[in-house]
């Protein structure tokens, strides 16, 4: 599993880093983000890349598993 810690980063960095990780094609990608809109953007990215995204809140932040 590749983990992308994008917490606290400005747009579009979280999506860019997640996209790079997805493109490596090494299976599951876990993305950590701080903002709700970043969670939505990562979910949309996963969908556009034909992947399934599962999100959950971790405290005030979010964890998205892309597989």
């Amino acid at each position, binding site marked *: 599993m590749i*983990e*992308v*810690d*994008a*917490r*606290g*980063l*400005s*747009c*579009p*960095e979280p*999506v*860019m*880093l997640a*996209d790079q990780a997805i493109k490596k094609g090494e299976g599951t990608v876990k993305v950590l983000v*701080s*903002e*709700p*809109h970043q969670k*939505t953007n990562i979910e*949309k*990215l996963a969908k*556009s890349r034909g992947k399934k995204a599962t999100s959950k809140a971790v405290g*005030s932040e979010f964890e998205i598993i892309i597989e």
Partner: protein
Amino acid sequence: MNLSDSKLKLLIAGIGCGLAAACLAYFGNPANMAFCIACFVRDMAGALGLHSAAPVQYARPEIIGLVLGSFVISAVTGEFRSNGGSSPMIRFILGMVIMIGSLIFLGCPLRMVIRMSAGDINAWIALIGFACGVATGCFALKKGFSLGRAYETGTGSGIVLPALMAGVLILLTCTTLLKFSEAGPGSKHAPILISLAGGLVVGVLAQKSRMCFAGGIRDAILMRNFDLLTIIAGLFGVMLIFNIATGRFVLGMNTPGIIAHSDTLWNILGMYAVGFAAVLAGGCPLRQLILAGQGSSDSAVTVLGLFTGAALCHNFGLASSGTAVNAETGEVVAGAVTANGKIACVICIAVCFIIAFTNKRNSKRGAAV
């Protein structure tokens, strides 16, 4: 309700913002400004006495409404996050650059779109500069540009800017302390309640839809994602219909009275600086106000940079003048970019390049993995 998860919802949000802009224009806001962030932050800076350009002083309730609308909706929906610490002083400089570039062109990206919808060819030309500026910012992002992480802060830090805006609203409505233009653009405005309501509505819609003029082009270039452009298309469409229906649509380059000039090179370079700086800062002036409303101290610092940039523009003669008709002779006097403005614009672009290629991911503590 999430407005950003489908193109249709985004289009509806854009149409909503366009209707608000059309109402504000109808009820008296100056030519093609509707709720131009650069113009109105500049007017607010004048009202607070940060500069002394008499024609552009009015504490615009639209700006207050945008921040408070974002603050209220994010608090209600649990999206308010008080955070900061992502290179705040660089963001301050980027805020200044965005304002200086905007006042050389005479409008923020929002006003550029509104001017485009009113047939102003200069705005269409400036779009080239804006898109090139965004593209340069995207190139920097691909090369690893980052301002580093923001961290959670105490709630009080995120509330400061909304509280200051509420304070200015109280000063505007309950005191005579603020300056107020008796002539010029600052004297033209919709009634306070309509302006405030317009700002609140757009603040809510922009917060829920993530509306961003720089982000629209940026996402199209970087990710082939056209979602944010859909909102702008909605706003453009409504304003185009409004302008044609009310006789405000005038196709041309030297139209007097619309607060614009036709100095092509500087229209392009001004908006190039704006597009470049906006991508580095993570959003256009509107988006910075919205992010500041939902708790970002970094965006609040960028907004303070906008205010400082506005003050510098009018204290040091950097702002351009619009083409106008001489009231006595009836002659058309072409608007112009000042020599100081041209020097400032070049410096702003150079500063953007320095910031873009000296702040790298992995090059300092706190940068991305």
